Structure formats: structure tokens, C-alpha cells
């Protein structure tokens, strides 16, 4: 591939999902990340109990991400042919797991009454 710059990558992703959907997804991801960072700063730490509860959702996130990739293509698990394939599949799962954990943690931490410094 020639010149794999950030600009090229953004242009390719815009074409893949359509510019509206792509930037909406980027915005959603950014909002979740910012909110998560806000919660971290507010609480000054990761709240152990909330984190454990959030982590329960990790397998769902992993499966959802892998399912999404399978849904996008005419291929499946049986097509995994080399180490890099397995790596990509695992990476997809990890990304889904981490993503959903962060989302659930943020939501739980924002729910009224769940915030240790509140009252």
C-alpha cells in the first residue's frame, strides 16, 4: 500500500461506513472515552466493585465484536488460516471486551448513588 498516512486511513474508513456513520461512531467513542476519563478524575481511582461488575460484560463485548466482523463478511471461523488471522480475531475480541467494559463502568459510575463520594 502506498503512503498509509492517517489521512488515507480516515478517507478509507469514511468510504467504508459512509462519512456520517463513521464520524458518528468516532464521536460516540470519543464521548465515552471522555466521560470515562471524567469519572476517573472525579473518583480519583478505579472503583473496584464497579470494575468487577463492569468486567462481567467483557465476554459479551468480545463476542459482539467478533460477531460484528463475521456479519460484515462472507467468511467465518473456519477461514482462519495463519497466525495473523488468529491474532486479528483475538484483537477484535479484546477490543470488544475492553470497549464494553469501559462503557459499562462509565454508566455504572454515573448512576445516582453508585458514586463513593456522593451524599
Amino acid at each position: 500500500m502506498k503512503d498509509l498516512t492517517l489521512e488515507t486511513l480516515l478517507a478509507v474508513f469514511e468510504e467504508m461506513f459512509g462519512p456520517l456513520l463513521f464520524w458518528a461512531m468516532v464521536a460516540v467513542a470519543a464521548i465515552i472515552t471522555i466521560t470515562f476519563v471524567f469519572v476517573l478524575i472525579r473518583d480519583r481511582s478505579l472503583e473496584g466493585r464497579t470494575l468487577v461488575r463492569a468486567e462481567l460484560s467483557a465476554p459479551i463485548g468480545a463476542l459482539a465484536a467478533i460477531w460484528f466482523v463475521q456479519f460484515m463478511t462472507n467468511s467465518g471461523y473456519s477461514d482462519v488460516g495463519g497466525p495473523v488471522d488468529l491474532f486479528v480475531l483475538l484483537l477484535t475480541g479484546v477490543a470488544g471486551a475492553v470497549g464494553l467494559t469501559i462503557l459499562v463502568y462509565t454508566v455504572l459510575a454515573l448512576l445516582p448513588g453508585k458514586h463513593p463520594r456522593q451524599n
Partner: protein
Amino acid sequence: MGHPQNLTASRRAFLGFAAGGLALAGTSGQARAENVKTSAKIVILGAGAAGTALANRLADRLDGARITLVDGRKRHLYQPGFTLIGAGLKPANYSVSTTAQWLPRGIDWVDESAANIDPEARTVTTRGGKKLSYDFLVLATGLKLDWGAIEGFSLDMVGTNGLAAVYAGPEYAAKSWQAMDRFTDEGGIGLFTRPATEMKCAGAPLKYTFLTEDYATRKGSRGRIEINYAAHSGSLFSVPIVNEKVRMLFEQRGIDIAYDRVLKAIDPGRRIATFASPEGDVEMPYDFTNVIPPMVAPDVVRDSPLAVQSGQWLDQGWADVDKSTMRHIRYPEIFAIGDIAGVPKGKTAASVKWQVPVAEDHIVADITGTLSPAIYNGYTSCPMITRIGRAMLVEFDYDNNLTPSFPGVIAPLEELWVSWLMKEIALKATYNAMLRGKA
């Protein structure tokens, strides 16, 4: 890959300096950052992959240039999608968009085909009789599929009598799938061929062979099917290391190869294909075949003084350009990019992506009176599908070297799922980004 644009700027600054003026060096540095002001008339023939990408890039870099794109085709076709359509994995409209939607603002689109080029007078005449004069002319007409060269065949037969023609267009690719689907249900002899001329995406005939075999295996009809591949020469693919890999895969998959057979006629009634071979004409039976005709330059180039004047491509008529700069050998203000260019290999959308910035840079350098160091090294890529869900990401250059984009990560000669994902998901997005001049 390094960033050739930086390279260009610094090389050009250096050249400017060497030419005797710091001032010149300064302006050529700026030329990169700001748009180049010019009143040059640039005419581009063909609004396919190459012409559209170049028009967008030039419109981005030049201020005041009169860019005219000449193409009578209202539909833009994403041709790499034809293979997926022909395998029933995408609908026909997957490859179809409009020519207009990719064009930059501020350029003129003449929606007629070009009928005549006069490189001495520097004019192009369209089929409707419009005369366009130019300072720079870019040939991006793609190529002509010479269906007439296959005796007994006509496109209205596609989809019936076991006849496929994936190259003919999205609708024909969809009909080809109907024929392939039926064949892999019923069984019989599958016969696959490729022409002896230069061709676009030389991997596509092989991919379709692999896909047919894969369907038969998946459907459980493989035992009732015989698959023959008639190679036009003594090899399956021009890059020796890839050829050897494909030969091994064919052997594993039970696909038989007949070498030195060039398709010349079809008898749909008897289901017999006739091939020219060193031993004279040879007949081979089929129940399913994907007809791929000889490919030649469109008449407007082939019948012009711009075509090659000697050598192996004399009867194919490709534009006679320098293989590193894409500049015409005899007319320096003319360039050819994409399938029409008379360069070895290089007839893929992936090559277009590498050729377009080279031609662009030489045109802009000519306008600013500088020299461009931009060089095309023959890069071509072919996601060689070996079954639904797996492909080999084969990339190579003029010298038959493999040039993997992700060395050590994505092995070029390994059948991988990620390489399939590149073809199925990333390729069209990258192609579209290229059309907009952004990739």
C-alpha cells in the same frame, strides 16, 4: 514506504538550488504548500479509476487550470467487485455508481467518448464532433475487451449453456453466477481460460477457478466435477514464485492444467471450446466456462500515433510510455495511466493508485518548470482469492520481486483470512478513497 511528497519537495528544492538561485528553491518549496497557479489546459480521456483519481488530485493541486474529463460512460464501475458478483457474494449493483459523483468541482466533463487524437495539432475530437485543444493530454481510457475475437460467442448467451463472462460487466457477472451455481449443483466439466494478450488483473481468471472449485466442494458435488485450466503460455502467472505457489494449490485442489492453449472459438451447442496451441487447434469440452477475451487498447489510442510502434504489443496498441514516468516516449506533454499504459504488468486498480501520483507530479513539475523525481516501480497487487474466506495478498513489481505492504505480518504466499477481509471489505473503500484523490 517513505513519503514521496516530502522527497519530491526536497529533491525539487535541491534541483532549484543547483539551477542557480536560492529564490527558485524557495518558490519550489512553496509550490508544494500552496496551490500552483496556472492557466494550463489539461484534457483527460477516460473517467474510470485512473482518470477520476488524477482529475481529483490535479484539481486539488492546481489553481486556474482548465481540466476537461472526456468519457461517455455515465456509470462508474468498480471492476474488482466483478469477481465477488460472479461468485454470488455481492449483488450486481455492488460495483455500480455514477461517473458524476466522483468528479471534483470546477472541472468540465464532456460526456462523449473521444474519437480522434491529433498529437501534432494537440487536439482531441469527440464522437459528437467537439474539438478540444490541450497543453497536457492524459490517456486513461482503460482497455477494450475484444469479444468478437472469440468465434461463436456472443454476450447475450452469458448465463445460459454453461457460459460465464465475469469481465463483461456487473450484470454479466451476476448472470455468470447463475451459470456457476447451476454447474456446481449439476456437475460436469469446468473449463477456465485466459487470453494471451496483456490483461487487467491477471489473477482474476485464477480466482474464479478457485472459487468454482470451492463451491463444488462446499456443495458436496466436487466428486461429480472435473476442473481444467487452460493456461495461455507455459505458466499460470507471470511472477515465477507466485506461479509456483498457484501450481501447487491447483495440484492440491485437483485442478488440471493444460499449458499453451489460447481460446479462439466456442461452440455453445456442442459445448466445445477450440484453442490455438503449438500443435495446432485443440478442442476441449466443457459444461461451464468463463470466457475472457483478448484485451487491446481502445481504437482512439490504437489507431493513433500514440500507440507502440514496434515490439510484442504492436497489435495490442497500448500507449507508448516510459515505464517509470508514464510519460509518452515521443510526445512529452502526453501521459498514459491505468490499463491503457504500455507498461509490463501494471493493469490493476492497485497499479493505478501508484501511477497516478507519478503522472500528477510530472505534470505539475512541467508547469512550474522544475523536474520531478517521481518514479513508478511497477507495483501491482492482486488479492488472489483461493476460496471463499481466504486469499493471498500478492504484491510485486516490474522485476518480479514480491513487495509486501505488511512484511512479516501478512505473508504474501499464505492463504489468509485477513487477506480475504482486505479484498472483501477494505478494497472497495480504498478504491473509492483513491477516486477522490485521497489514497
